[in-house]
């Protein structure tokens, strides 16, 4: 039982405003032997510097940088410790200070948080946050073993060396407790694979139906392969800046209004039951008839904690009403439903309604994972949380089409823009949210970004 004490629930605040000014990324592929990791990273950073309509030339932007954050999940995958130093050197940022951040699947989100802390504290004024994962040096079953090294090696990893199974345990329990039809999960996979078809960066663009998802083989029952995210190689980068520097760099900075982190035990099974930590849009009444223990296997306390802190910091009262777009860490269809509840889009037990109501779609109240998400676009782990915020930046700037609709962008990655390409720019979005997530919920960050109106 977790009982919060004074200090545990302090609402974090930035000492001064933090802005996102530019973003860049490579495309994402299962295997990318054509390019070394340095090339992928430099290409993402170059895109941020050269293709974001900045008021400063790339060389001037370099001249403004005073600290760097590097985001890579697993030294195992790249088979290179201190890869941060190699990337820093390749980018010519020596002798500026830099740190590498590692929190599993949430590494990207945590890296952005670290960069934001550097800006907010006054330590730095311009910080690139650069993430990548080189997941293609080993065969898939070896890659799955590396990923399962992020489970407890004494008590869990030996039991399958397969993360999808650890999520399947949660899925089975969730479906049992809340009687969610399997089709609802399938709809999430279809949605995100479909949106991925309009992204030149996406690895998993597929035209699939719910029937295809249900008919695909079990990766680990009840999850099929199409319920599970991609394993990708690629890189993504954003530049963070303080207010003065942000407006020097661009006329369209986006404010990172609040960002917060939560955590929970690495072993899902070690999560003792407790009272629900309430979000601003919930009251004790919301859960008076709750039948099942919480958070157990059906909920992520880490996500609830991060949302609680970020929502209170940003003054969010009703996320579905206030957010215009959302990027979740849809590593598995089941974890997406769980996350809807953790971040208060629906009360616990009713997450299915967020997808079933149509709210989660482009046409709905809160378009979710228009990027294609981890199911459809990419999960190049260290890059993922940065990729999410890049997509939100471009959406809030009203520039999504610049990066997705231009046939030259498709050509750059050896692809042809599909005939059924859809413009997924949200109409005049003002506020976006991104959720970065690790383990079976060991670390989660929630970021809230706002369009700057003058």
């Amino acid at each position, binding site marked *: *039982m977790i*009982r919060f004490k004074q200090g545990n629930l302090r609402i974090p605040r930035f000492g001064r405003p933090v802005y996102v000014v530019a973003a860049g990324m490579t495309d994402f592929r299962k295997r990318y*032997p*054509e*390019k070394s990791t340095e090339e992928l990273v430099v290409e993402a950073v170059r895109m941020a510097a050269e293709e974001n309509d900045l008021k400063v030339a790339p060389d001037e932007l370099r001249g403004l940088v005073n600290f760097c954050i590097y985001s890579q999940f697993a030294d195992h995958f790249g*088979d290179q410790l201190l890869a941060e130093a190699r990337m820093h050197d390749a980018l010519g940022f020596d002798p500026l200070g830099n740190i590498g951040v590692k929190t599993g699947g949430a590494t990207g989100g945590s890296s952005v948080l670290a960069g934001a802390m550097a800006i907010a504290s006054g330590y730095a004024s311009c910080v690139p946050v650069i993430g990548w994962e080189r997941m293609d*040096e080993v*065969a898939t*079953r*070896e890659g*799955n*073993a*590396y*990923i*399962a090294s992020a489970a*407890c*090696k*004494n*008590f*869990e990893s*030996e*039991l*399958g*060396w*397969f993360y*999808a*199974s650890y999520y*399947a*345990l*949660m*899925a*089975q*329990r969730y479906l*049992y407790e809340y009687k969610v039809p399997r089709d609802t999960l399938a709809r999430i996979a279809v949605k995100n694979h479909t949106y991925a078809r309009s992204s030149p960066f996406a690895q998993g663009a597929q035209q699939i139906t719910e029937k295809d998802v249900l008919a695909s083989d*079990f*990766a*680990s*029952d*009840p*999850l099929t392969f199409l319920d599970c995210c991609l394993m990708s190689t690629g890189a993504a980068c954003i530049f963070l800046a303080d207010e003065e520097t942000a407006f020097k760099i661009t006329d369209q900075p986006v404010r990172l209004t609040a960002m917060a982190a939560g955590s929970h035990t690495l*072993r*899902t*099974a*070690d*999560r*003792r039951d407790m009272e629900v930590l309430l979000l601003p849009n919930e009251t004790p009444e919301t859960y008076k008839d709750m039948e099942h223990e919480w958070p157990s*296997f059906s909920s992520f306390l880490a996500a609830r904690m991060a949302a609680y802190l970020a929502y209170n910091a940003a003054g969010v009262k009703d996320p579905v009403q206030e957010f215009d777009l959302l990027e979740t860490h849809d590593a598995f269809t089941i974890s997406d439903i769980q996350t809807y509840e953790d971040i208060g889009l629906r009360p616990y037990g009713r997450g299915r309604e967020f997808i079933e109501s149509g709210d989660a779609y482009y046409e709905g109240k809160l378009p979710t994972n228009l990027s294609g998400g981890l199911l459809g676009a990419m999960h190049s782990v260290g890059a993922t949380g940065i990729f999410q915020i890049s997509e939100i930046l471009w959406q809030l700037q009203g520039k999504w089409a610049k990066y997705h609709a231009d046939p030259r962008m498709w050509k750059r990655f050896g692809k042809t823009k599909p005939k059924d390409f859809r413009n997924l720019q949200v109409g005049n979005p003002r506020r976006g949210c991104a959720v970065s997530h690790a383990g079976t919920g060991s670390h989660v960050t929630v970021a809230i970004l706002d369009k700057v109106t003058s």
Partner: protein
Amino acid sequence: MNQRPGVRPLRETCNGQVTLDGSVADLDSADPMVIQNPKGFVHHHTYGGLSKFFQGLAQGKLMGTRNANPGAPEKRIWLPPRVYCPDTWQKMEWVEAPTVGRIFTHTTVLYPGAPFRASVPCPLISVEIEGVCTKLMSYLSQGTPKIGLPVRAVFNTTHPTHTILDLSWVPA
């Protein structure tokens, strides 16, 4: 050649000339050049204070820990065990945990990662045990898993693997 005492090079140089050992990095592709870097290191991993749990499995016992100190906020057994109580940082004491429980949730491992030591399909389960404050991830070595199914622990005492795989469950 002057050598530091006790230090022996793996291969001696010949006439002061350094030679390669003759092994070759295998090529997957010449352009881009993709080479193979095999790894075969052995990690000497300690269970430390948790050794008693794994020794217990080899003896057919399910050993947990509990915080017996007065005022401990959690009195129930921890399984997996912990040397120190995470609520108070006090040292825990070892106790034998019940060897019967119920399946809390389950799945089936079909595509395990490379180092998996058991056969597939392998029904993975999480077991709920009375008096234990955590669940325990394990596998069902016989039968079909179902939520709520009563199960009892069985122990691989004949040829222990010295891993968590030495514990499994069967329908009770």
